[in-house]
């Protein structure tokens, strides 16, 4: 396909779109260079003893990659679609290049596996240990994180509604809730393990306690987020508490509730994983991380962390999607 070269005037009129073709050519070159380096660094004569000229090439590749990223980041794409592609492409390329550097440095300099395994080894380990990883995922995420997150957040929202109904509770619980939100709640993990045993029940308990307060505090804040004018309007309709809640205050609290749900998704994963450091049956992501670290098989630890990272991102991403659908009206999402 031959892209017709835009006339200089037109390119100027479109902004800095003229930078894009050059950057794309550079991108192809850098990619080719990276692929070559990836192949070369695993050759026996290079791995662990890469000579100076190889590192020089890598530095050159780095500079070239920076130039390409710089060009792409500053380019003003001609269409909104192209801009979306660029906005996605730049960070992806950046991340890919970081992983490339990780691989090259660990393999080329012969970094011992017990210090920092290369991504290729982590990937291989991940592919090999899929059944184990899946079991750990089931134990930690499906049995502890998700039930605990749902229970803790739901309880927090429910108590927030109660606080809304009973002003005494609000005045009494809110300062405590705000205070507790700043505490290292993860510390209750050993107590919960003692109370509820080694299995998933104690992890659920930890997650419930950790997610309860953010849900409570955010929901209460959200319930007072509706404007005075809107509340006067409901009053002029002589609307009762339930109607006002349903028609006005819950909808306007939704951005706050989703904020809590998103914060809680991360907290829940952290809570369940760290609670497993205090004792589990021979299963679970936190258990695997702590034991494999003890056995110095860091590739397995990294594989587990990769699973945790993907889980966290997907969990968060799904919530963000739901938020976008529910609070489409919020100024940050509006499209005319």
């Amino acid at each position, binding site marked *: 396909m031959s892209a017709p070269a835009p006339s200089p005037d037109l390119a100027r009129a479109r902004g800095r779109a003229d930078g894009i073709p050059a950057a794309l050519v550079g991108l192809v070159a850098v990619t080719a260079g990276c692929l070559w380096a990836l192949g070369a660094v695993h050759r026996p004569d290079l791995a662990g003893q890469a000579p100076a000229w190889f590192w020089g090439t890598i530095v050159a590749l780095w500079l070239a990659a920076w130039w390409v990223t710089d060009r792409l980041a500053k380019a003003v794409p001609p269409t909104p679609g192209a801009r979306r592609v660029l*906005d996605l492409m730049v960070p992806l390329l950046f991340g890919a290049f970081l992983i490339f550097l990780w691989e090259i440095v660990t393999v080329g300099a012969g970094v011992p596996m*017990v*210090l920092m395994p290369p991504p290729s080894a982590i990937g291989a380990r991940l592919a090999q240990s899929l059944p184990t990883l899946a079991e750990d995922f089931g134990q930690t995420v499906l049995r502890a994180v998700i039930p605990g997150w749902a229970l803790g957040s739901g309880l927090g929202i429910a108590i927030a509604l109660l606080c809304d109904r009973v002003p005494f509770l609000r005045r009494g619980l809110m300062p405590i809730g705000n205070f507790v939100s700043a505490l290292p709640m993860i510390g209750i993990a050993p107590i919960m393990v*003692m109370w509820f045993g080694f299995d998933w029940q104690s992890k659920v308990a930890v997650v419930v306690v950790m997610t309860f307060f953010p849900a409570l505090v955010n929901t209460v804040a959200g319930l007072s987020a509706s404007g005075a004018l809107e509340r006067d309007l409901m009053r002029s309709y002589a609307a009762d508490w339930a109607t006002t809640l349903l028609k006005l205050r819950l909808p306007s609290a939704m951005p706050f509730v989703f904020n809590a749900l998103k914060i809680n998704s991360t907290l829940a994963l952290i809570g369940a994983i760290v609670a497993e450091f205090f004792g589990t049956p021979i299963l679970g992501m936190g258990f695997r991380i702590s034991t494999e670290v003890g056995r*110095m098989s860091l590739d397995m630890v990294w594989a587990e962390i990769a699973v945790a990272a993907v889980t966290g991102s997907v969990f968060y991403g799904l919530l963000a999607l739901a938020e976008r659908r529910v609070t489409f009206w919020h100024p940050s999402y509006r499209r005319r």
Partner: protein
Amino acid sequence: MTTEAALPSGPARSGARGGGRTVSAVLFGGRTGPVLVIVAAILALWYAACLPMNAGLPSMPTEGDLATRYQAAWALERPVLPSPHQILMELRVSTCGRLPSDQPFWSAFFSCEIRWTPRNLLFHAWTTLSSTLVGFLMGGLLGIVLAVLIVHMKTLEKSLMPWIIASQTVPILAVAPIVIVVLGSLGITGLLPKSIISAYLCFFPVTIGMVKGLTSPHPIDLDLMRTYDASVWATFWKLRWPAALPFLFASLKVAIAISLVGAIVGELPTGAQAGLGARLLTGSYYGQTVQIWAALIAAAALAALAVAAVGLAERITVAALGGRR
């Protein structure tokens, strides 16, 4: 007829009703009253729960009336749920040593002689606090520097910022054991690895808060600086930095709280040498519930102190800037 939402509308009419303040009005209507009532309720519930929670223990008497059974439940060596005064006593004993027996109880309770040994809870608290603070300083500075770079370099904004946001969704604490073990095998132990975990945890909120803060000036303000032909440097110090300060302090409060979490979790994989995290872990190994609770209270106190300190710094700064906000 329907009940109505009791919502405040219009200006507050404080004192409109006037009259004497009854006891119930103070307890249920004021600001601190309800908090005290709730705290008292929690304590009462706690004491009440001690018996059912501990009833299954072999050391509990199965006979006798409720009073003696409760007394036993509140004084167990290794209870499932220790009573609040047991925890208070543990805090006293683990910081100031055993009570001297030759004095009346209360004067003995408050006479304190601190021995700086690894058995002292204050020693562990200080261990955790020092790595928390070092990590907080490193992470805070890193966060600010990154934010300044991101705001001024479009390439970084486009390439790095999405990753910083995405990494918020990842359970970063899971990496803590690796940091400890890898640095340990390189011969780096003690305070630094824990501080690195803390720094790693707390630079994220600072970066994100500061990027928000540094870009918070209104376009009109930036245009004004342009009409003065102000340099990037001048725009930064005269406009962006002051505008970012409220955001900075808000994110520093979050940062120091999770810096403490990082330090505590960082103390877990090293096999429990020193620090509040170590106390939690040994307590959990040996079933020393009272010790766990005492460490937990100490951690809570540290968190409250640290957040309050940041709050104080915020007030001083805001006052120095003319008390805006």
